[in-house]
């Protein structure tokens, strides 16, 4: 029994703790501290003055100040404690510095931020307690109908105001027993229950609204983060993993050859590894830079983006990939044809860029060097056609690929209204291991 209670207790403490961490921020810290300071100042100023606070009153008020200071560090638990203490003091026959109501209002706002329901209950309780004890509301009148003694009194400034329709808890407002109303810090005078009610409701709504705004911000930044992460994953896949797969394949070949590795080979491997490192740095920079604008980044990844001479630019771009495959023992062909009037948009260009890199890397990973490869690209006014034929390797080193590369491109291509068809690929299947791919990307 006790253990269960302890567990429940610790669960509550944990929830409070996490609520504290969620709500804590510099502005709230400042607000609490200022309120505590105002209360303390007012208490000290009124101490011993005729009609002011007694020593016992001041002690109670300083306890409240202490709770507010605690709340500056633990916003939610401090707010709850301060509010409970304030309500207790309201009921108790002690004099209170007027600034304490500010602290109570702040506490209600914070509780509203932490939990809407708890905040609303706290606000209702605070108003009710205050109204019954200090606000001059007669509970007897509330419970047993009108005609209580308190209606005989005052309220010179404000005529009776209509009750808040949204707050059925609240009876028709009763005037304040004190002539001149409740004055906070000597600056704001409140007459009757309604302004107090409105203040509490306002702080509550403010807290809830702040929470709502924060939630929205968090959702937005979460979305941004996810996009950025997807992009980073894509870049890591497109560049880094392809580079590394190439290095591994070359090492495999060297091991299989069994001869001593020459300086040229080492230099080639070093260059490939250095490129992988460079790409890793680029991806890290991208992740660190956060949501850098994608368009600028896209441009910088594809030099020579002029519509004219794009076939030539593409050919130049394919050369390093081809020579990579040559070093892996692939005798292949790349045929790039640019038709007059071919115009490729930036997005298509970027897609094509990545797709070609992916295809070349796939050849290295999955194709049999003896079977060679044929890659054709045609740029025409109606769009881009890419086709690839190679022979699937009997030993397909699956460790070098997670198999998500082409699927990702298929999704992107289909989103742009294009298509990707893949045929064959079984080393011992009916096609004799022939693997072919046909991609069509229409002009947007």
């Amino acid at each position, binding site marked *: 029994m006790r253990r269960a209670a302890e567990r429940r207790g610790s669960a509550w403490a944990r929830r409070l703790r996490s609520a504290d961490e969620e709500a804590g921020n510099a502005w709230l810290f400042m607000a609490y501290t200022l309120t505590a300071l105002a209360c303390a100042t007012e208490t000290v100023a009124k101490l011993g003055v005729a009609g002011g606070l007694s020593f016992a009153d001041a002690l109670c008020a300083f306890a409240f100040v202490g709770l507010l200071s605690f709340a500056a560090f633990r916003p939610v638990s401090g707010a709850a404690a301060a509010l409970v203490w304030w309500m207790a003091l309201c009921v108790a026959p002690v004099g209170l510095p007027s600034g304490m109501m500010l602290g109570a209002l702040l506490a209600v706002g914070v509780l509203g931020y932490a939990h809407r329901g708890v905040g609303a209950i706290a606000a209702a309780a605070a108003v009710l307690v205050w109204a019954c004890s200090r606000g001059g509301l007669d509970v007897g009148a509330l419970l047993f109908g009108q005609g209580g003694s308190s209606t005989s009194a005052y309220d010179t400034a404000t005529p009776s105001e209509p009750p808040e329709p949204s707050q059925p808890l609240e009876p028709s407002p009763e005037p304040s027993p004190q002539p001149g109303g409740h004055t906070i810090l000597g600056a704001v005078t409140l007459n009757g229950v309604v302004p107090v009610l409105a203040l509490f409701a306002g702080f509550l709504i403010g807290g809830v609204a702040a929470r709502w705004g924060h939630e929205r911000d968090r959702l937005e930044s979460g979305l941004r983060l996810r996009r950025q992460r997807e992009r980073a994953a894509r870049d890591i896949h497109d560049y880094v993993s392809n580079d590394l797969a190439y290095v591994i394949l070359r090492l495999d070949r060297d091991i299989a050859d069994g001869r001593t590795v020459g300086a040229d080979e080492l230099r080639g491997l070093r260059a490939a590894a250095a490129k992988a490192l460079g790409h890793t740095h680029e991806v890290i920079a991208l992740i660190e830079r956060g949501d850098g604008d994608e368009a600028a980044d896209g441009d910088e990844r594809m030099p020579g983006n002029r519509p004219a001479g794009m076939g030539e630019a593409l050919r130049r771009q394919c050369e390093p990939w081809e020579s990579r495959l040559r070093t892996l023992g692939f005798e292949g062909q790349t*045929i790039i044809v640019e038709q007059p009037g071919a115009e490729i948009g930036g997005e298509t260009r970027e897609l094509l860029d990545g797709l070609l890199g992916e295809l070349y890397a796939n050849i290295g990973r999955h194709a049999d060097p003896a079977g*060679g490869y044929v890659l054709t690209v045609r740029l025409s006014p109606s769009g881009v056609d890419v086709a690839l034929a190679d022979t699937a390797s009997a030993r397909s080193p699956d460790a070098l690929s997670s198999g998500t590369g082409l699927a990702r491109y298929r999704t992107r291509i289909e989103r742009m209204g294009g298509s990707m068809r893949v045929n064959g690929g079984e080393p011992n299947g009916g096609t004799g291991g022939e693997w*072919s791919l046909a991609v069509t990307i229409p002009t947007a």
Partner: protein
Amino acid sequence: MTMDGTDARGAVICVGVLDNDPYALKMLESMIVRLDPSFAIAWVTELGAVAISRCLSPAKRPDVLVTDMSLRDVPGTEVCRAIRTKTPRVGLVGITSYALDAFRDEAARCGAQALVGKTDLAGLALAIRGAAAGLASGTAFMDAVDAHVLLEDAALAAGGTGARTGVGALSAKERETLRRYADGETTKEIAAAMGVGVPTVATFERRALAKLGARSRAHAISICVRRHEF
């Protein structure tokens, strides 16, 4: 002339067919086997890349490739060039539903042995039979072996110019032709030795002279001697 063995006379001629249109492909497939009992369809495909890949694969290579010239993914001429640069062993027959003149010269340059209209069935049968033996149909076209030597040599020269001195660099075949002339061989002897036709040897010589800026064969040889080309 080296010919691709047994299929030249009487034996089965394996044909590969390339056309982007699946219906046209089906029609061509059924039409070609009806043209001649010795014709057999090895495979059909809609992709130029696949056709090139298969023609270069020793296991799947057909005797003749029949290709549409107006392909979607890659022009028929480029398919022909890619295959012919690598091998003389596949006869190339272009077909088109457009005017033949539009493609003829380019198809010839790219190493095709014939170009026929899609509706010219008799012409197609003749062209396939000729191409299976590596022979050209029509004066504009070259035999498969000659076309291969020319294209291969041009490809090597194009690939080499970057690394070597540029315009003046001779290809291996051009250098060999001049060297054989310098050794006193006749054009016929050179053609036989290099396994190409006489016109091909003449082409090598013409290109070599142009590259060296020479005014005659003797001039070209003397330039080569001075440059230690031999």
